[in-house]
């Protein structure tokens, strides 16, 4: 079985896995980084969102053989001390209900705010529409992204 060298949250990892193994399962089962969640496996729900070279990407669709030399950031690597403005905003607004989708929501929000630091409400809604929250904490997600944007500006 091939061995892949992955750069995740600034650290190098060697992983032995089939070439078609999605990054999601490499993170969860091989590297014990379980913050990235499995929701649908077809890129529809956003629970597995990570950053690949800074862009929000569905890790359930990304095969491990395709990410050589790319910088991967997961929820575990957003900050060392919950200091990222998006995490702070999530905390202040008390966004989660069950909490399962929130890592994916936070990863989508952090990538989005990097590209658009002063978004309108409708831009926030569009940017976050790839992430399903079954508990429907959507009003708070919207508020938290707005708050995070104001913290970052």
């Amino acid at each position, binding site marked *: 079985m091939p061995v892949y060298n992955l750069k995740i949250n600034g650290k190098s990892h060697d992983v032995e896995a089939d070439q078609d193994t999605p990054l999601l399962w490499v993170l*969860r089962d091989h590297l014990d980084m*379980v913050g990235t969640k499995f929701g649908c*496996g*077809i890129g529809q729900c956003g629970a597995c969102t990570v950053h690949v070279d800074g862009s929000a990407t569905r890790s359930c669709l990304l095969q491990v053989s395709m990410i050589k030399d790319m910088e991967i950031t997961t929820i575990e690597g957003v900050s060392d001390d919950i200091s990222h403005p998006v995490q702070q905003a999530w905390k202040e607004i008390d966004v989660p209900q069950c909490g399962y989708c929130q890592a994916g929501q936070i990863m989508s929000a952090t990538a989005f705010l990097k590209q658009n630091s002063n978004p309108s409400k409708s831009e926030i809604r569009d940017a976050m529409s790839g992430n399903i929250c079954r508990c429907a904490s959507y*009003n708070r997600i919207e508020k938290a992204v707005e708050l995070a944007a104001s913290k970052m500006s």
Partner: protein
Amino acid sequence: MKNIVPPSFSRRSFIRTSALASGGILIGFNLFQACKPEAAPPVDISQLNFNDFNAFIKIADNGMVTIFSPNPEIGQGVKTSMPMIIAEELDVAWDNVLVAQGALDTNNFTRQVAGGSQSIRFGWEPLRQTGATARQMLINAAAAKWGVDASECKTKNGVIINANGDTLGYGEVVKEAAALEVPENVTLKDPKDFKIIGKDASNVDIDKIITGTSLFGLDYKEEGMMYAVVLRPPAFGKKLEDFDATETKAITGVHDVIKFGDKVAVIAKDTWTAMKGKKALKAKWVSDSKLENTEDHDKILTDLLNGTAFKTMRADGDVKKAFAAADKVIERTYESPFLPHNCMEPMNFFADVTADKVRLVGPIQTPERTASRVAELLERDVKQVSVEMTRMGGGFGRRLYGDFALEAAEISKLAQKPVKVVYSREDDMSAGIYRPAIKYKISASVKDGEITGYHLKEASVNSNMYGLIPNFFPAGAIENYQVDVANYDSKITTGAWRAPYTNFLSFAEQSFFDEIAEILEVDRIKLRLDLLQKVKGTTDERIQYSPERLENVIKVAVEKSGWGNAKEGVYQGFSAYYCHNTHVAEVADVVLENDIPVVKKVTCIVDCGIVVNPLGAKNQIEGGVIDGVGHAMYGDFSFKDGMPENKNFDTYRLIRINETPIVETHFIENDLSPTGLGEPTLPPAGAAVANAIKAAKGIRLYKQPFIKHMKSKAPLG
């Protein structure tokens, strides 16, 4: 289901204490029944078990309070709100309270069930009494130390103060308190003195959630554990005839392929390999009964509604007579499809079955029932079975059923290994325990402008309505009133889905009253309020709702939503409902964008008694409303040849952030005991939206999901 009234026990019977070897006092309490005579909390904190107690409070000698609560958390916030109630009566600062998930190692727990929005309602009194009892014991210990009367002492934020102004921290008297008798009579705080209850508190797991720390069942792993992915019959009504696992077994990392019943488990070193192994299985299925289709159900339910095979759930007066004497009879039919739960965390469970123990770990709303079912399945003594609950990535009713835990136990037994069963989204949506497809026919008789008769007929797949619901509004408000049900026995598994039974009933009834008001040309609010006047002072003890509280939420909704004064282009719809002991009114604001109705806002008025944690409560309310709007608009699930036609989010639509209304919440302030919030804001949402769409487009919706039926111009009822 019976209307269960929380029992009241003497304090001594449900609270026990011990002095911890490491310092501090440990208070064990049993919320819903008396403790066994021999029950005593351990002296070593690592030996906590929940056999005899629901939860523990530890007060350390530095005054820090830790509450060990095993109550399952599915996102409804009880892991935060229940400890708040204890801390309030204990009179400690919320910042000095830690909440730890109590790891369960037991088979004997009561009411550790998250369902029916009842945790807070049932827990309210006993949790308060527990906190107050602990506080009194600390006071008694301090008073003895000072040689003063306990009645001269008071407390403030974890400090006991006597008449001379001397102070002792709780931590300074825990050792003495642990040796005291549990007092029999304690005084509860006056709600106006609450300092924690009624104040916003963040989710106690927030830091773990936003850093991706392991919390959920799917995150659970231990040394030597294997992953199991299961091939189940592809359709309801099919059985496994034969299978070929040659290709599966050739995959590196696949350890075993095991048949159990009509299912085949692929056991592998990781989830992905197990999923690939399942795909490579070649199975032959045979039908052992007729394969059902949504079109068949449609016809069957219509025939049931038009037939005579009804069971009467409640009958007042004589509807037949009322209808015969009527000036006008209004009759409408409402329909909804099956719905899957679609918890974001797909079903999963860990099991380790060994010769002398059965260890189960995972997300489950009903650990006690699951433990006994697993014991029965494996022919083990239930005392050998332990269940540890993880945080749950949603429940919505699905995790009341332990089918996935039974699978895990059976596979672990056969594989002789610790295994975790993992469902894919397709597995989760196809092996569901769905909200049944339902039709309602509602008829009302009108005489001299008054509603004289009301006849609700329900036809549902398997079963739906149960005992208490026929006593909800409008029971008691209409002299001649009857509720009849007829069911069709299907192979498709159905069960509780968030706000079971009322999630669709509320849509039907609140749409019906809206239409009656239009037909009778009376104000829609007045029609509802007039009906409620007739229930006031009722001596009918079966009536579940309070007409006064329902009237109040309706009036406040009118005021807060600007009902009748909407801006140009904004169309409003009204709905009010009682369920899960909570009274709710909602007003939906709809606008037309390119002639398509868009729900912009929902004003939601909630009377749930005392609001323990407004921050968490509002989250539940917002979620419930949006969930109600989402499923009414988009939820569509059908069967063809016994097989679900929707298996993942590409073909099953859930509401997304760009489609959500802003929810504006207002609470009715009162001192009444709190009631649940996980469910009651969902049922009224569908009718509020449908009634607003009627106002906007002139189209009256009778079927869910609206998106499918909105375009039709033909009368659908």
